[in-house]
């Protein structure tokens, strides 16, 4: 069934098709339509779930974690300040191996108050042990939620599915909504090997001495390392059933590219337009849109970027005192390899300032004009 829906509703549809059993959420702009539609779905009983209308995002995540421990599939959605309020609980979810799935609408952090997009909210959750996916279309949001449940439950690690404020959350697109039966065949019921029940009483998350703690974290990393392959397999199987493939990265016209952009989110779709325009002008450009940020798709990124003569990383985020965050990650992925491709770092679009096809043209001109980067941050569009 094809429907014209907004990005936020793609999250709600994903949760319904994924048969989330417990939803605990708190409203925040620009996420509200996610919970509004889910409330309708629960009220209409098209979704058989308990919706706990909590008093904060912190409680939302706490409730999702506890529901997951009981063996229920749990879902929530938030944004920005709400996500960062959850920060402590993000560690609880991954550390406790609770495969909660969450939608996060990328919104810039206050102060000053902003409701517009950038990635600092979710990227500052980088080290919490969550799988992170960044989406560029409403179809991708819906498909990613369904796949995220499956990936998360296979490795018992939570997933965050991220989309840009307004640029995606409030943009209406045609979305193919798969049949429930087919989704059920793809995504069986959550059936964790261990769950909290009085019939087999255990203590979850108790005081853990240095004798045991280290191994728990080692295992989390080892299972995180299985995720790239799992995401590929899951994506291929999804493609077989639904005709759409999503992997760790999406590469566009990279095969013969001399300049490759590294992008994420909706800016990664805009980049494809930029690439086409540049190609039209004779510049062999390409684009790698990083879909999965954690775990970082080292192999894929190395493989694709090693073909380029220059790489331009476009960050809609910043690690203050360091550089653009994707820029750091890409450089770290390439370091020590046998390819010495110069990597240029660009920061643009903070707080929702538009990233246009022309932005990529400007970035291409700057990148092609130099042999090697002279600075780690080149600011695009900043008023000085």
């Amino acid at each position, binding site marked *: 069934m094809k429907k014209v829906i907004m990005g936020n509703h793609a999250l709600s549809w994903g949760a319904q098709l994924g048969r989330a*059993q*417990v939803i*605990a959420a708190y409203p925040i702009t620009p996420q509200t339509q996610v919970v509004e539609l889910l409330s309708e779905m629960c009220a209409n009983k098209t979704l058989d*779930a*308990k919706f*706990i*209308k*909590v*008093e*904060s995002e*912190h*409680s*939302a995540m*706490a*409730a*999702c*974690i*506890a*529901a*997951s*421990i*009981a*063996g*229920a599939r*749990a879902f929530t959605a938030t944004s920005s300040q709400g996500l960062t309020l959850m920060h*402590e*609980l993000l560690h*609880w979810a991954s550390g406790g191996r609770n495969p909660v799935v969450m939608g996060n609408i990328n919104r810039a952090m206050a102060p000053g108050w902003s409701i517009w997009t950038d990635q600092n909210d979710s990227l500052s959750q980088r080290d919490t042990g969550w799988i992170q996916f960044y989406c560029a279309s409403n179809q991708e949001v819906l498909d990613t939620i369904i796949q995220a449940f499956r990936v998360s439950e296979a490795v018992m690690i939570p997933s965050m599915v991220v989309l840009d404020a307004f640029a995606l959350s409030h943009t209406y697109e045609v979305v193919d909504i798969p049949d429930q039966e087919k989704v059920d065949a793809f995504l069986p019921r959550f059936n964790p090997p261990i*769950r*909290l*029940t*009085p019939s*087999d*009483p*255990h*203590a*979850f*998350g*108790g*005081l*853990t*001495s240095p004798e*045991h703690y280290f191994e728990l974290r080692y295992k989390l990393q080892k299972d995180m390392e299985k995720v790239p392959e799992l995401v590929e397999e899951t994506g291929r199987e999804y493609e077989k059933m639904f005709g759409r493939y999503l992997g760790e990265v999406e590469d566009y016209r990279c095969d013969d590219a001399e300049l490759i952009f590294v992008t994420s989110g909706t800016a990664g779709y805009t980049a494809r337009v930029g690439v086409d325009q540049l190609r039209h002008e004779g510049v062999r450009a390409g684009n790698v849109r990083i879909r999965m940020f954690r775990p970082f798709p080292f192999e894929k990124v190395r493989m694709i970027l090693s073909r380029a003569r220059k790489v331009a990383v476009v960050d809609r985020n910043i690690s203050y005192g360091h550089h653009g965050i994707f820029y750091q990650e890409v450089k770290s992925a390439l370091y020590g390899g046998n390819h010495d491709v110069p990597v240029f770092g660009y920061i643009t679009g903070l707080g929702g300032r538009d990233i246009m096809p022309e932005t990529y043209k400007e970035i291409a001109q700057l990148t092609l004009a130099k042999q090697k980067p002279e600075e780690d941050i080149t600011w695009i569009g900043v008023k000085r």
Partner: protein
Amino acid sequence: MSKEKKMKLSLPTEELMGSGHLACQGCAATLAMRYVLKALGQKTALCIPACCWSVIDGPFPQSSLGVPIFHCAFETAASSASGLKAGLEMVGDTETTVVAWAGDGGTFDIGIQALSGAAERNEDIIYVCYDNEAYMNTGIQRSSATPYGAWTTTTPVRHFKNRPKKDLDAIMAAHRIPYQATANTSYPEDLYKKAKKAKDIKGTRFLHIYAPCPTGWKSRPEDSIKLGRMVVQNCIFPLYEVENGEKYTLNIRPREKKPVDDYFRLQGRFRHLRDEDLKFIQAEVDRNWERLLKLCEPKS
């Protein structure tokens, strides 16, 4: 005719708590758990945030309890319990009693937002606060449950706590939850009865259990039961129930209301208080008691 007399037991003999726990001597929080579990039975699941009980239970991979526990984040006892209840119901378990089991810091202070949220939604959980009147697990720092006049490591004697204990029971009553009660391990039958009653009610139930802490109160372990009796007899911590935030029932009315002095003299945390301080405290206790008696008067 046999002269053998059999003692009548007032509590079930079934134990869901083992002796191998890690509590200090004279800890009333352990008794509270033991009695409450006797009332709730094995089909119980606990959410325990950071508090003494997150240590008392024993370290991973051990546990001294025969019921499952989710050791949850400090401020999430009520929200975790809400999620656990919803999760259990969604996987087909509608019978298990879900209990948030928190100390006074996790209830009066850092957990009050989640507690208020759960109570307003009338989540089907029992919230138990065992109240030892300070952050005992971290080393005796003041909480908003610490009474006026007390020494703690963050209210040294020269600057003892100069604000009264937060009236959390009134806050809970303002939420109009179906059932709430104060209780005390020195009155185990009363505590047992209240936990049992709470079990059979649907919606948010709140038990506020007074729990002497010899380590933090600088009292003798063998005085914990005595302190629990005194605090009811001198009306500092009266035993009462509230239904739907309105119907107050006083469970124990002392025949003769005792002065507070003896209670204070048994605890090192109050050693610095002068007679005039005690007079001030007595006046406050009297006022609170009168207020409670008014609330407990039958409505005409």
